[in-house]
C-alpha cells in the first residue's frame, strides 16, 4: 500500500511517501496508525495522538474505523487549514 504524509506528519516521519505491505491483522486506519506509531520516535510523535490527526483513503476523507486494503493510497495529515 502507498502511504502519504503531509505537513507536520511528513516532518515527523521524515518522508513524504512510502510503499509498505499491509501489516498482518491490520484491517482499518486505526490499526495501521498504531502499527506505524511503534516504528520510531518520529513516527510515535506523528501517530501517538489520533485526535490531532486526519486521514484519507484513495483521496477521500476517512474515519479511523474505515477499512483498508493492499491497493489503497492512504494519507495522514493534520486538520486542514486552507482558504
Amino acid at each position, binding site marked *: 500500500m502507498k502511504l502519504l504524509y503531509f505537513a507536520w506528519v511528513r516532518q515527523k516521519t521524515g518522508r513524504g511517501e512510502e510503499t509498505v505491505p499491509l501489516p498482518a491483522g491490520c484491517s482499518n486506519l486505526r490499526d495501521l496508525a498504531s502499527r506505524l506509531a511503534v516504528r520510531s520516535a518520529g513516527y510515535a510523535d506523528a501517530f501517538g495522538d489520533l485526535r490531532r490527526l486526519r486521514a*484519507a483513503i484513495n483521496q477521500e476523507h476517512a474515519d479511523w474505523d474505515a477499512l483498508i486494503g493492499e491497493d489503497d493510497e492512504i494519507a495522514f495529515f493534520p486538520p486542514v487549514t*486552507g*482558504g
Partner: protein
Amino acid sequence: MKTRIAIQCEPFDAAAEIAGLSDGAGAVATFTGFVRREGDLATLRLEHYPGMTEREIARHIGEAQARWPLLAATVVHRVGSLKPGEPIVFVGTAALHRREAFAACEFLMDYLKTRAPFWKEETRAGVTRWVDAKATDDHAAARWKQ
C-alpha cells in the same frame, strides 16, 4: 455547468476570472482571501495533497450545483510561499440571480476551509510553525448540513 479548478503558485487575475464566469449570467459572486498583514508575520507557505485537492473541490462544486442552479464555478487556490497582503484564494460562482450566487460562493469557501487538503505554515520572527485549524471554520461548514 462550467467549472474551473486551479492549484497554482502564481497570482490570479480576478477580473479575468469574473469575466470567465459571467457568460450570460446575471450574477457573479466572488470571494478573495488574502494573507493577513499581521505584526510579525513574514511568510506563509502552503502545501497541499495533489490529486485529492482537485477531487475534493470538484466534489464540493458538485454539491453546490445540486443545491443551487449555478451556471459556473471557479476555485483558484495558491500554494507555495506567500507574503502578507498577497491573494491566496479565489472562489467565484455565477447564477441567474444573486441570492444563489452568494449562497454557493459562501458554501464553497466554508468547505474549502474545512475539507480541502491544504496546510499553512507561517514564519514569524524567524520561527516557522504549522497553523492550527480553527473551530469556527468547522462551525461555518456545519451550518450547511442543517
